[in-house]
């Protein structure tokens, strides 16, 4: 009964999410279909060389993929197909979009999961330590390093790691082998540099947020009370301060999960040749493979919306005082 407002809230949010997703889908659709490129482009060089009639071939290719119809009709077709679970056909890889995504999403997921774990665990620990030892040398060093961490361009960091550890020292191979199992030793080894590349920025961010959230709470009255009761410092920090600092941290970490999917992870996958969604959408954009581009954009959007909703709901459990209207 107490949480009945939450159900209404979730329904309202889901409704908004659908509208936002539809808006983004439409914008992407218009962008890719209204652009001056055509799926027939990749055949043009060959056609010209073989002496065939160019316009005829373009027409037949466009008819095959249904891009010769008026854009409104294409849009209607696309939406109808989407509701039937048909995401279209990938021009460049000649397979259904759903198949393509099914066979590649796991690599992105693995990279993002491992990087987030690495960043969150290490970042929170360093942040707590830094806050507890405020204004000591360790704190200054941690703060300074976290500035460096958030400022270092992650694609450049990736290139530098390859330069030092692969090219000069020969310690890591930098390619991911899809024929081996996901969590095989060789692939985990190949993922170490990408995880550092993607994780460093997040790690530095978490150090800063943990530190400031901890400091906010360390000054509060209940901490003095807890200390006055004679509780050991471990309990004061771990139970009283950290639990209260957790709320803003959860937001940041969840928000990052949503936003890194197409920022950092995208570039990291390209630098290290990891065959995840970032890599396939990148290839798809350069190959004019519209259905894949739209599908990946839609998946990214839905993911962000879902993560945002889950974050807001998690709040209400972490802090029962929070109510949304």
């Amino acid at each position: 009964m107490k949480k009945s407002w939450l159900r209404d809230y979730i329904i309202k949010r889901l409704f908004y999410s659908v509208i936002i997703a539809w808006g983004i889908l439409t914008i992407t659709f218009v962008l890719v279909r209204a652009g001056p490129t055509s799926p027939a482009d990749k055949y043009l060089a060959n056609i010209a060389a073989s002496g065939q009639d160019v316009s005829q071939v373009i027409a037949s290719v466009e008819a095959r993929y249904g891009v010769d119809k008026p854009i409104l009709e294409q849009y209607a077709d696309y939406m109808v197909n989407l509701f039937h679970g048909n995401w279209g056909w990938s021009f460049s890889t000649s397979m259904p979009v759903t198949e393509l995504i099914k066979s590649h999403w796991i690599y992105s997921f693995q990279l993002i999961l491992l990087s987030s774990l690495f960043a969150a665990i290490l970042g929170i620990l360093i942040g707590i330590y830094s806050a507890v030892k405020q204004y000591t040398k360790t704190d200054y060093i941690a703060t300074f390093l976290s500035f460096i961490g958030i400022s270092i361009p992650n694609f450049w960091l990736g290139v530098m790691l390859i330069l030092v550890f692969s090219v000069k020292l020969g310690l890591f191979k930098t390619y991911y082998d899809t024929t081996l199992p996901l969590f095989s030793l060789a692939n985990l080894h190949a993922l170490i540099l990408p995880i550092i590349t993607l994780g460093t920025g997040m790690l530095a961010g978490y150090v800063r947020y943990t530190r400031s959230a901890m400091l906010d709470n360390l000054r509060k009255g209940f901490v003095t009370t807890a200390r006055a009761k004679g509780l050991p410092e471990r309990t004061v920090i771990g139970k009283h301060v950290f639990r209260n600092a957790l709320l803003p941290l959860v937001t940041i970490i969840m928000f990052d999960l949503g936003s890194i999917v197409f920022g950092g992870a995208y570039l990291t996958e390209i630098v290290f040749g990891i065959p995840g969604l970032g890599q396939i959408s990148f290839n798809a954009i350069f190959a004019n493979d519209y259905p894949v581009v739209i599908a990946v954009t839609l998946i990214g959007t839905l993911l962000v919306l879902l993560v945002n909703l889950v974050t807001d709901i998690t709040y209400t459990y972490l802090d029962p005082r929070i109510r949304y209207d």
Partner: protein
Amino acid sequence: MTKRLQDIARRIGRPFYGNRRLIKYYWERTRRNKLAVFGLAFIAFLILLALIGPLLTLDPTSVNFEEKNLPPAGFATEKSVYNIETDDFTTTEVFGIWKHPLGTDSKGRDMLAMIVSGARISLLVGLIATGIAIILGTIIGVLSAYLGGWADNVLMRFTDIMMTFPFFLLLVLIVFIFGPSLAFIVLVIGLTGWTGTARLIRSEALSLRTREFVIAAKALGASDSRVIFRHLIPNVISLIIVIATLSIPGVILAEAALSFIGLGDPIMASWGIILEAGQHSLDTSWWIAVEPGIMLFLTVLAFNFLGDGLRDAFDPKSNV
């Protein structure tokens, strides 16, 4: 009485840039933060470099294959040369020369000159695109807060859509479809990057809207535009400065990342373009990828230091 009220409203609504004492106060607070001062100094150096640097360096476009792939002065690198008589590779050591203090690229162009002219481009991209984004964000944020009602609703839902859009994918998509010209890239980054600013400005303006001096101004018959330009915007200007400082590095990085994946303007050698060329020759000439990256990193670091310092200085609650 009316005169007095008007006077008070004018004084409180006075923008801080018109108030010398306030500027001095903020400057004193910023100056106490050593990292912020370092950031400011580096940015000043960078602007100077971009303005007069190209006059002092060699021509960044002059190609010289005799001097290609030279390492920075003081460094040495090994070069394999195929010898047709012995049908074998002979390895010779190549030393950097002071004519090219930062070395040369694969076409023998001077790296120092390229880095300096790249500074001009990257900095321009950062400033102009941020300017567009900040102006748009401020207008949308203030309008949304001030108009309220359905206009607020429409503007904020649109902001939601733009915010949820996978930003980098959108950027790559638009630039790929419409071609990578630098002016266009700047425009696209500016037109897509305003959402965060709009949100922040809106929430700030919402709380300002109910404050006494705004109500007083309205009660005295001030027009909407007067309230917005005299009372709302001057009071969010410190927030705008902080947001702008902290978003410039993101914009510079976005352009660099675009160039890095091959969607940069090939005519304008920004740092990202140089870096892109360098990543393909890591095993033979490492400096081509290292140098522009260091500049990018230091620039981002400097803006982050300064932005952080300014935020602390403007925030009366924080005690540096």
